[in-house]
């Protein structure tokens, strides 16, 4: 089971990084989203996968309960990643509107061509 998840995490990372290498902002965002999901799966896997009941407080301490901690971590990570993705998506739209391009190589407003300063005083 762990092996399958490890391979899956690898594939997700590869796909995410491939998309992030693209100059198109929307593709980069999709890459980030997949990257984030890869991390979630990674956290899940590092918590050791057990086919056991979900942990519920009670007297049955002898259960083989699934590790609850990674699930709490993933929940946090998902919430954060989702809000960031939403923000960046809106940012992408606004940037496309105001800069007329979604190619980050062409977004050069903040990094203008250098102007020659006066050489003498």
């Amino acid at each position, binding site marked *: 089971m762990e092996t399958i998840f490890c391979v899956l995490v690898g594939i997700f990372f590869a796909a995410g990084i491939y998309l992030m290498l693209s100059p198109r902002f929307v593709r980069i965002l999709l890459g980030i989203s997949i990257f984030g999901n890869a991390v979630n799966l990674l956290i899940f896997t590092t918590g050791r996968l057990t086919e056991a009941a979900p942990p519920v407080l009670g007297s049955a301490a002898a259960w083989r309960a699934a590790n609850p901690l990674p699930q709490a971590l993933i929940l946090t990570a998902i919430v954060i990643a989702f809000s960031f993705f939403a923000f*960046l998506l809106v940012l992408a739209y606004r*940037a496309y509107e105001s800069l007329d391009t979604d190619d980050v190589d062409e977004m050069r407003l903040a990094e203008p061509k250098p*102007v020659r300063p006066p050489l003498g005083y």
Partner: protein
Amino acid sequence: MVPRFAFLLAGLFALSPSAALAASDAVDKADAMLTGATPLFAWLVVVPIVLPLLGAGVLLALRSKPQIQAGATLFILALTTLGAIGLNAAVAINGPIMMAMGNWLPPFGIVVTIDQLGALLVLVTSLVGLIGLGYARFDTDEDSVQFGFYSFYLLLITGVNGSFSTGDIFNLYVWFEVFLIASFGLLIMGGRRIQMDGAVKYGVLNLIATTIFLIAVAALYGVTGTLNMADIRTVLASADVAPPMAIGALFVLGFVMKAAAFPLHFWLPASYHTPRIVVAALFAGLLTKVGVYALLRIVVMLFGTAGSVFLPLIGVLGVLTAVLGALGALAQTDLRRMAAFLVVSGIGVALIGIGLGSEAGYAGAIVYMVHSIFAMTALFLVIGLCERLTGSLSLAMPGGIYTVNGLAAALFLIFGFAAAGLPPFSGFWPKLMLIQASLATGGTMAIAGAVGVILSGFLTTIVIGRAWALTFLKPAEGPERPAGDAAGLSAPLVLLAAIIIGLGIVPMLVIAPAEEGARGLIDPSSYIETVLGQEG
């Protein structure tokens, strides 16, 4: 009215944990929970986090009343700073302080733990936030105040303070995201085209950096089975658990990216000069330093001897960053972009201190961080002030600011020389400490470190001198521009200048706690004792 209140209170008491505890069956929680009351001074630990967080919420609720926002923020940050001063005193007396969230004992619950290093940085952060506010009052328009400028401002301080004081590695990630989202909000506020461009680069690269950090956290959890920093340190220090190189490499990669060290610094000069100047100043002062702090905390303290593999790499990166950042600043004509490159160069100097791997090196890096928080904030603010006086600032268009406002010109020179490390300003002592530490270390890194520190200081002096001569001293061409009113804006800058000169004259104010903090990083036994010793 009164009966309803009484009813409400009764309801609250019925729901309160103590009532529930009394009613529950005999589950023994003594192993997992703190049963006694939290000592009063431990509450100081969360003051610098909770106050701004609460304030941000309250201000958001009151966003339709822009006239009270600045005053309320000032009040909150003043209280926060007072809390941070008290915290420093408490840490100096008691050693590291821990507070267990929800009374869950470590390693189960999240703990907020502060040692001398964290307390010092929390104080500096709160102080810079307070001083920056004096400038922000004149730098914001009503629109941005209504969009929640001050809420974001407080959230940024919350996030940075939280990062400096958490004792849980996943919680550190969460605080990273808190100040990251606050910085996004501040970065795009105003919505000019150039801000969109800067925000795209800043947003994407910082998000990737924190995600890489999260990958490393996940892998570290897989290896150690715990998230509590003190617990991780004890697990990693035992001989049979060797963390794979990849985990440490991921941590270094993530933090070096956040700290904007060469070759991962390109996002910083692309974005830091785009927002309103007080925002840029806060970013320049605080955000990159969190990356350096996290390197100190995780690679140095948590990994201990296992992390020493990475120190030469960090040192080499530091030398390259310090020199190339200053060279990059020399190539700029826009003063804001120039200052952004100086931030990068300063990060390099701090990284050299980490790379030395000695207690003196860490102490130098910590003192440099404190100096850099003040100096970089001040440098950006004074550039903003001059921009206000003359319209725009570029080396290609001489501004003649010296004749318009001599005070601003003098302040620029003070802050610039402080950044370059000239006495009697605050930058001199940490650089001296770093050079001494380099020479005491011996080997190649010693020469490289000393050369890096000296060369970056030398280049920064040229950068500042050139900018000053061209923009401030050289008479303006064309008609005389009217001088804007800058009296209110200058006040926080004069305060910063006083701090910078004060730290240059009485450096022990920072050096003493920094050395204590460095000792705590190398030998965190009292930290671990504070966090894990409560079970008995």
